[in-house]
Each structure stands twice: as structure tokens, then as C-alpha cells.
């Protein structure tokens, strides 16, 4: 069974080149991708995650507003009863914010410059962990 991933951009930032490249790369790597697009409210992302029964939600944020938006999306997922969905975040993220994002609920963080192969491998590892909980 392919793993379902939701790719979305919360907040107002419209730079979606990276999000689309990631969506297409994941699809080619065997994931089932739901691409929600830009300017999505955290509550909408959570609702779609539940509706589409995805295991992973990937956020792409280039505006610098990643910490607040990740916190809000994590909370929205919990509120929607989808607290077990893995949240991962990519974008223009300074190193010093990685820990803050992890504290906010991100299972993995992919700053600009992360090779696409690295991202795919990381998501495959995370998926395997979901499939076979220890």
C-alpha cells in the first residue's frame, strides 16, 4: 500500500516551486500525493488530512513564518483527532529554528538545499516506522 502524503503551503506565501517539485518527486518515488496548494489555513490542512486519511503532512514555508504556522498546524491536526499523522516541514528554515520546529511537533525538517533524494529517503524511513511500529 503506497503511503499517502499531503503537501500544502500554510500562510500567505505563494512560492510553490519547491512544494510542487517535492510533490512530483514523491509521486515518482511511489508515494500517493495529495497536493493542496498555497494559502491554506491550518484548520483546512487538518480537515483534508483526516478526510484523505493521509499518514504524513508536508508543509512548505518560505516566508519565514514557519514556527508559528507549524505550531498552528500541529494543533489543528490534534484538534481534528489526527495527532498521529506525521508532520514534516521544508523551506527557508535557519538551523537555529530546527529545534523549535521539532518542539512544535515536526517529525523532520528539510531546510532549503536539502537534496530531493535525501528527502525521499527520510520520508521512506519515517513511513517504514509508521508501518511497523516497534
Amino acid at each position, binding site marked *: 500500500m503506497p503511503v499517502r502524503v499531503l503537501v500544502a503551503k500554510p500562510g500567505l506565501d*505563494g*512560492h510553490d516551486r519547491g512544494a510542487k517539485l517535492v510533490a512530483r518527486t514523491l509521486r515518482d518515488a511511489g508515494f500517493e500525493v495529495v497536493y493542496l*496548494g498555497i494559502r491554506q489555513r491550518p484548520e483546512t490542512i487538518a480537515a483534508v488530512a483526516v478526510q484523505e486519511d493521509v499518514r504524513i503532512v508536508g508543509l512548505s514555508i518560505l516566508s519565514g513564518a514557519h514556527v508559528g504556522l507549524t505550531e498552528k498546524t500541529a494543533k489543528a491536526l490534534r484538534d481534528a483527532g489526527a495527532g498521529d499523522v506525521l508532520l514534516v516541514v521544508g523551506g527557508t528554515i535557519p538551523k537555529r529554528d530546527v529545534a523549535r520546529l521539532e518542539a512544535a511537533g515536526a517529525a523532520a525538517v528539510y531546510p532549503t538545499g536539502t537534496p530531493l533524494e535525501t528527502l525521499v529517503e527520510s520520508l521512506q524511513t519515517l513511513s517504514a516506522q509508521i508501518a511497523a511500529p516497534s
Partner: protein
Amino acid sequence: MDDTVRSEAGIPLEVSYGPEDLPASESIPPPGTFPFTRGNFPDGYRGRLWTFRQYSGFGTPEESNARYRYLLEQGGTGLSVALDLPTQCGYDSDHPDVEEEVGRVGVALDTLADVEILFDQIPLDAISTSFTINGTAAIILAFYVAAAEKRGVDRAKLRGTIQNDILKEYVSRGTWIWPPRPSLRLIADTIEFCAEEVPRFNAISVAGAHFRDAGANAVQEMAFTLMDGITYCDEVVARGRMTIDEFAPQVSFFFYTHGDFFEEIAKYRAGRRRWARIVRERYGAKDDRSCMFRVGCVAGGASLYAPQAHNNIVRVAYEALASVLGGVQSMFTAAWDEPFALPSEDSATLALRTQQVLASETGVSRVADPLGGSYYVEALTDEVEARVIEVMGDLEQRGGMVKAVEDGHLHRLIADEAFRVQQTVSSGERPIVGVNRFQTDEPTPEMEGYELDEAGRARQLERLVEVKSSRSAGDVAATLDALGKAAAQDDVNLMPLLVDCAQAYCTLGEMVDVLRGEWGEFVQPTVF
């Protein structure tokens, strides 16, 4: 295996070019002569140098004002205002959904009060100001006119540009609000308003730059942009109130210059010739000034990389040279640290110096269109133009730009090209120094990220509260009501009503909400 050597946009290239590759002489008359392949002006840059226009603006109006005054003192000759995303998308700073984004990628403008501070002590009748604003462009223009007149500057003296190009927002930049139809109407309103009342102000800067940064190649960038230009001109002409010659001189264009040196030069020359012919042939322009393709550009953007980041200084310098050899009218040179930080004062100054060295020391501006007649450059100009015509023809046949925006066709073309380029970078087929060639252990600079100034945001919110409590509630209600009523009709120009709203200190969000009530909201196709 295909061993053809190609340009970045995929144009096959010969080993060398000769006299047989030159176009007919009517395609390349002297500079300043229709169809302007060799430039808009007979004296090239001797009469008027290009404008050094550095994009900047962040945080509060006070901070941005200080940066603008600094840039002008350093010899900048125009301002370019960056606005935060809430302002671009039509939300006031106190909207609950936008708290993380206030003042983040640009300055927050909620009411006329902010605009008055932003331009404090800046001579509005002497400098030109460009606003990268689209969804809310008409409102920002209303703020600017109102701010100037409050200081006693006649609106007829204002110079500058609002980007005001919504079609590319639906595809690649994302700051839309309303659907295409009412948005086109509002854009036509601003074009008419500027032609009649703010005659030295460009009502629109049709921008290919964002298609480019989203992944389009140089040919697509030019073709999509000219198609957008046609869509806007069609809209104004169809109203029957204005001829092309009455407004075309206030239409300008905006592009990215990336790394393929000769292709970029050819792109600008081809675009100039194509637009001139479109304006004359499609709209029957009688005045050659209507046919001129006035171009601003950015050197940088997606052509810059974080690894070995100082290499970006060199990239921007070559791109700036290509832009000038292509004959642009204004330029923003990006700072080398742009891929991972908001530019520092040092890097922003160096970016400006890059243009100053080019203009003052290289002699590049001494002779108009120095590459005119080059076998290669002329042949490449012809080839770029032929391919632009082909892409435009395909789009027109499919039903035009609004349809391509609504059904996701344009999104798909750009995503396909972005994916193709990514593959050629990953495979090393497209060499990039420091990324897939000549890599070193030099650590990639840390992404700096801009810590939001919480105090600045608090000040912004405080001012909004202050403005709301000191303005006349009656004036606010009356001007907003008039705006809503006019929006429901098709034949009323909304600009004077927006100026009334601005003068009554209505907020940007209030004006947007009234129009959203009448017009609804755009829903973007999600194609990847």
C-alpha cells in the same frame, strides 16, 4: 545521443553565425526606430541611464522609511517598495489569520497613516516609486495619491509604477483575492485613472519575472508576459472609452535576467520587437511611443544559490551586464545573500555598487545597442521571437490567458519546466559552480532568517487602533458604502471611490472585504 548544443530554453545553437543569419534590415533599423529591436531611444543610455531601483522594505513604515532615505543618499534614483503578505493579500495587520506575517517580507500598510510615515521627507514629486503590489494594487495607488495630495503634491506629478498584474499571481506568485473577471475590471479602472489623472505613473507592470522564478524558461517567460499584456489591453480597448494611444505609454513590463547571457539579451530585443508589432497591428496604434516596450528587470532570483554564496556577486554582475546589453530601463540587482537571508545593509549596498560600476566604469552605456548587427545576437533574437510567437499562438488557440489560468494549463507548463530544470541540475547536465561543479568543503552559509520585530508589530497594531478611533465613522461608512454600490455596477471607475476611502482612513482590509462581498474569491487549480 543528442549532441546538439542548446541554450537554456532549448534553442539549438550553431558553432558560429555569419552574414546569412542576419534578418531583413527592416527588422533591425537604427535604435529608437519602430519596431525598436535595437532599443527605445536613438541615443541609447546617453540620454537617460537606466534607473537603479533596489527592492527593499520590511518591518514597520518607520524602518522602511529609514532604509529608503539611506538608499537615496547612496545614489539610488528610485524606490521600490516591498510589502508584507497581509497587505498584498488584502488583510489588515490585526486579522487573526496573519499574525505570523505582519511586517515579515515587506512593510505593512493598513491605512493612509502608514503611507504618510513611509514617505516622510521623501520628495514625492522628484523620485519615482515602484510598488510590487497586485491584488491590492488599486488600493495602494489610492493611498499613494491621497498621501501625496495631503502633502500638497499634485497627483499629476507622481512618478512610479504599481505592478498590478493579477494574471501571473493566479499562476505563480499567489497574492490573488478576487476571480479574474472583476480583477481585470479593476485593473482597467486603474489604467484609465492613471491615463487621465496620474499621467506620469505606470498603471501596470506586466511581470514575467514570477513565471520565471516559478520555473518558466526565457521563451515562456516572454510569451506568457506578452499574452498577459494583450489581455489587459484588450480589456481597456473593449470598453471603448480610450484608444490604445491614450494608455499604452503607461504600460510597462518586468522580467528576471538569469544566467544564459546571450539568450537573455536576445529575449529583451525579441520582446521589444514583438510588443511593438502587437501594439501597432492588433490595436492600430498611431503613436510610436505606444509601441515602446518599457522594461524593468531583476538580476538574481532563482539563478542564485546558497553554496559558495559569494559566487552570486559574480552571477549578478554578468546578469546586470546582459540586462543592459538587452536595453532595459530599470534594474534591481539582488544581494548575494538573498538565497538565505534578508539582505544586510552591506550586501544591499554592494548590489547597488554593482550597477554603479557597470554604469560608470565599463563604458557599456556609451553606444546604443552595442551588439546590434552581431550575427549570433540577431539570429538568436529572431529565434527567440519565433518561439515566443509559437507559444503565444498555442495559448491563444486554447482560449487565452484567463482560461489557461482557470483550468491550470499554465500551472502545468511551468511545473513541467521547473521539474526538467531540476533534473538537469541534479544530473549535472546544467553546470552550476559550487553546486554540481567545483564543490568545496566551504560550509553553506547559515540561513539567517529574519526575527520579527515584536515591538514593531505591536506599534503597527497600536497605530491601527489609534487610526480607527480617531477617524470619522460616518465618513468610513459612507465611502465604503459608495464603493460597494459602484463595484456592483460594471461601468463605474472605482479608483476615485478608493481614493475617497483612503482619505477617510478606511483600512485596506475594509476596502477588500467590501469588494470580496460583491465579487467573491479566486480558487486556484492545484496542479503539480
